[in-house]
């Protein structure tokens, strides 16, 4: 009984940690520009697929991973420069639609370049799974937790200790004021897109050995990441992490205890419930409307 519960918990936290990383990417861009970047899932896909393609060409894993992350970050930058920046006068809804267009475009290119098949990636370390109180923990799950934790700590340090991080925070709080004190908000936006593409691609790479990867994996992972961000309260870093983990665990429990048919339904009704009782999400900022 307990081992069963533990098994669902392991499964849930592994996929939940991935959702959390993707949700953080959503949060970052939302904070900097109030845009919900629906191309976030494509960064996840680019991370996994590039790594698979490069290792397939005989490159060592570590080099492939680094190149894939760099490619995704450059893509994030290019997305901001080429698609978002030229339309800066447009309102937020238009920008969101642009990101949807960009995601379809990136997915199309990926389909042409890499084909439609699913690809597998080996685990990062020896494939031996651990046994904990009768439940099995995939060694790759440890990598997911570890890398997720390191990234979160790094992000916290980035935002509290570095000038660039503080500039992003300042821009998210008040764009006009930030510009007045000399912060170049366009650069901040580029930085936000780059960092969130980086987070997405890392998520895509660490989870690929568990879920496989293909040109269209970004659709569902991106959507789940968005749900996680919305549950946590769009714009809150802690919320993204808690939302991601909660979503993953609830999904796994639903699949195990109820039926996998309801897994996605449970996930998506969670967002309804949370938003119904807490319209700003679990950790959303209180908004005071000034009259």
């Amino acid at each position, binding site marked *: 009984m307990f081992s*069963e519960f533990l*098994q*669902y918990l*392991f*499964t849930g936290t*592994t*996929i939940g940690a991935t959702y959390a990383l993707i949700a953080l990417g959503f949060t970052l861009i939302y904070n900097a520009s109030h845009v919900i970047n629906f191309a976030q899932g494509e960064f996840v896909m680019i991370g996994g697929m590039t790594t698979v393609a490069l290792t397939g060409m005989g490159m060592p894993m570590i080099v492939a991973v680094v190149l894939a992350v760099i490619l995704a970050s450059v893509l994030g930058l290019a997305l901001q420069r080429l698609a978002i920046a030229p339309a800066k006068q447009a309102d937020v809804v238009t920008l969101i639609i642009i990101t949807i267009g960009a995601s379809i475009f990136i997915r199309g290119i990926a389909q042409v370049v890499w084909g*439609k*098949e*699913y*690809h*597998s990636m*080996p685990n990062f370390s020896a*494939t031996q*799974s651990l*046994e904990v109180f009768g439940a*099995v923990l*995939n060694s790759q799950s440890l990598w997911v937790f570890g890398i997720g934790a390191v990234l979160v700590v790094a992000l916290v340090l980035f935002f509290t200790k570095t000038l660039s991080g503080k500039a992003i925070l300042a821009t998210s709080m008040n764009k006009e004021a930030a510009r007045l004190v000399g912060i170049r908000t366009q650069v901040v936006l580029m930085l936000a897109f780059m960092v969130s593409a980086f987070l997405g691609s890392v998520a895509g790479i660490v*989870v690929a050995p*568990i*879920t*496989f990867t*293909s040109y269209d994996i970004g659709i*569902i*992972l991106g959507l789940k990441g968005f749900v996680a961000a919305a549950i946590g309260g769009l714009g809150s870093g802690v919320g993204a992490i808690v939302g991601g983990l909660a979503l993953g665990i609830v999904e*796994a429990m639903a*699949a*195990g205890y109820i*039926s*996998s*048919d309801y*897994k*996605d339904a449970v996930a998506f009704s969670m967002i309804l419930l949370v938003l119904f009782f807490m319209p700003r999400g679990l950790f959303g900022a209180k908004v005071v409307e000034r009259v």
Partner: protein
Amino acid sequence: MVRRIGKYAAAVATGLMMLSAQASEPIKIGSFVSATGPASFLGDPELKTLEMYVEKINDEGGVLGRDLELVHYDDGGSASSARNFASRLIRSDQVDIIVGGSTTGTTMAAVPLIQQARIPFISMAGAVKITTPVKKWVFKTPQSDRMAAERILRDMKDRGITKIGLISGTGGFGSSGRAQTLEAAEQMGVEVLADVTYGGSDTDMTAQLTDIRNTEGVEAVLNFGFGQGPAIVTRNYADLGMELPFYQSHGVASDSFLDLAGSSAEGLRLPASPLLVPDSLPEGDPQKEVVQDYKAEYEAHYDSKVSTFGAYAYDGLNLAVRAIEKAGSTDPEAVRKALENIEGYVGVTGEFNMSPDDHNGLNVDSFRILEVQNGKWTLIN
């Protein structure tokens, strides 16, 4: 001057063509396949096979002294365009027989039209409902999922297994397979103790497998599904350290499944066409030569790996040719009768014995049970 010569030449050429056309008008074989789109992994090898063998048959003198002409359309996997193309094949191309329909969806969309137009139709899609109940003008070459379920259960019983756990995809293939497995299990006296499913885009099936593992008395696990899902199930199965005998369906009988599942596929069994193991068929197996020839010819011609799905087209075309030869004409009713009475045609998929009550003609034995040993398909029986 030049223009006048051109004109004469054109007139002469047309005259010659008309003469030869009168001598032997080609037999028109119509086809609609899903050469592009989500089902292109089916339609692409099917179309390639049809094109290659129509050419080969013509080089060898054609059928009844007439050439074959392949008229084909790409339905892109969409049922409504399949219906439109079937209608065009019948009305404007006026084909003599149709070999086509890569998926159950495209096949079933075209069936009503074809029944009405009274043209023999050989489908290349899997579901049991295509030929059950029997439709007068509709035939098909692949085995049904029912046969796959029966073949798997028989192999289990041979190993003394009577209590199983079932995990299936919720897509069309998986859910039809699940229904057929449950029915067949009841008939054959096998108990399905656990019955769980997973969605098409699910990325982790550990929870469902844990469910099965914790069910008292399960002696083997069967996964009925298609695409990447079964590969994830296979990996999770190995990660969980489950040691019960593990079966997959014919839906993943391809080398790309082995690539995805890697070493975790070791020891699993599934029913498949002998095309996966052409060289390990015993001498004297009637299918050995056909299978080896098809594989060699296809791979030499296209420089890509042969697939089970192309074999459905190979058998479809050969059944059509055989029926037309037997009928001695392309009269639809005569060809249909001849198709219905084909006996002992040994194809790549199996040995076909058609009858008025059986428009598929294959039996359960046409599935071979394969086991993954050292990362390769190995013939068990």
